[in-house]
């Protein structure tokens, strides 16, 4: 508030309204005059030209509020103004970039992404051991384990995680990360368009990945079909 008052006083002094000020205001104005001058000088340097004077005048006429962001070097207003003054195109709001996976940046390097089918296999093995442990009333199986196992099994399209890993592994030499490979495996895509829609980080590599992905999707479809034919009740229904 004090800052705004101070700047308002400096702007008022520029408009020649000093006669209505109190001594305190005048002293503040005096100080603010120098700061306003320095800010004006700063503005000229920031905007690189005589035009800022006109902008300053117009902003003063509008009450000075628009001036404050420029003085502060506000990017949203001053920056845009700078672009206009420099003759560049006005900022057009760009459509937001699609959200991309950033797994490797957030987890420690020793973390290994697992496909749902791999996790289901491991958790199933642990569950069999837990059956023995669950006879002990002091040991409680955590809820997250049951939920995790149920989720891994329900979203699993494939019988053999090793086969799926073998099919998807060649994609890594085209620059597809482990996390992206796991998303492809977990979503069981049917078309290349689906892959690029669900994993937008692969779009820059569209030309190099198109053909390898066709082969991979064909082999994954065969593995899914094998799983469905051997276990029709266990396989998830896809509409």
């Amino acid at each position, binding site marked *: 508030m004090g800052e705004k008052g101070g700047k308002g006083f400096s702007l008022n002094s520029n408009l020649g309204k000093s006669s209505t000020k109190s001594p305190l205001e005048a002293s503040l104005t005096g100080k603010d005059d120098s700061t306003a001058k320095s800010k004006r000088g700063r503005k000229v340097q920031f905007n690189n030209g005589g035009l800022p004077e006109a902008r300053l005048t117009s902003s003063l006429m509008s009450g000075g509020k628009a001036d404050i962001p420029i003085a502060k070097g506000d990017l949203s207003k001053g920056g845009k103004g700078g672009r206009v003054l420099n003759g560049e195109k006005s900022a057009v709001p760009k459509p937001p970039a*699609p*959200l*991309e*996976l*950033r*797994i490797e940046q*957030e*987890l*420690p390097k*020793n*973390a*290994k*992404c*697992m*496909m*749902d089918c*791999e*996790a289901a296999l*491991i*958790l199933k093995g*642990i569950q069999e051991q837990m059956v023995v442990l669950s006879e002990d009333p002091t*040991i409680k199986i*955590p*809820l*997250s*384990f049951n*939920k*995790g*196992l*149920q*989720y*891994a099994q*329900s*979203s699993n399209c494939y019988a053999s995680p090793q086969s799926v890993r073998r099919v998807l592994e060649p994609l890594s030499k085209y620059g597809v990360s482990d*996390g992206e490979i*796991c*998303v492809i495996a*977990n*979503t069981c*895509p049917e078309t290349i*368009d*689906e892959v690029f*829609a*669900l*994993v*937008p*980080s692969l779009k820059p590599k569209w030309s190099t990945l198109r053909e390898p992905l066709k082969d991979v999707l064909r082999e994954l479809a065969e593995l899914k079909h094998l799983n469905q034919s051997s276990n029709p009740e266990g396989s*998830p*229904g*896809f*509409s």
Partner: protein
Amino acid sequence: MFFHIVLERNMQLHPRHFGRHLRDNLVAKLVKDVEGTCSGRHGFVVAITGIENVGKGLIRDGTGFVTFPVKYQCVVFRPFKGEILEAVVTMVNKMGFFAEAGPVQIFVSNHLIPDDMEFQSGDMPNYTTSDGSVKIQKDSEVRLKIIGTRVDATEIFCIGTIKDDFLGVINDPVTS
């Protein structure tokens, strides 16, 4: 998404657990303390798969407890922004719907549901298209994309969307 990760934890053991079964007691305590917990960095610790290393114990001054540094392998579940998940709807209201994917809760706001789907109140509240061909209600399976995560003391909560291509209802419990 599931991850297999090696974590380290300092376990404190009371002297009454010492003896020939010290390692078993240490592992049991680790399982009890860690499995089912949640952290912002690693997500939910779903299960411990093995013990990599148990370091030398250090006696704490004044208490007699011994601290052992334990490295262990575990399966964790952590959602990421931009990840595609298949979740089961647990509740539907006019603000959107809640869904569950493993131990993670996800909320999809009505702003992130396709515009041609409208909320229908009643005994079984749902979102339905104008022609009635697609319905999202309790127990429906939906494919969604995570757009935000929030970590609490004991759980991770996510915001999701079904407004993008190839997202939406997978399985309707009524027609399946």
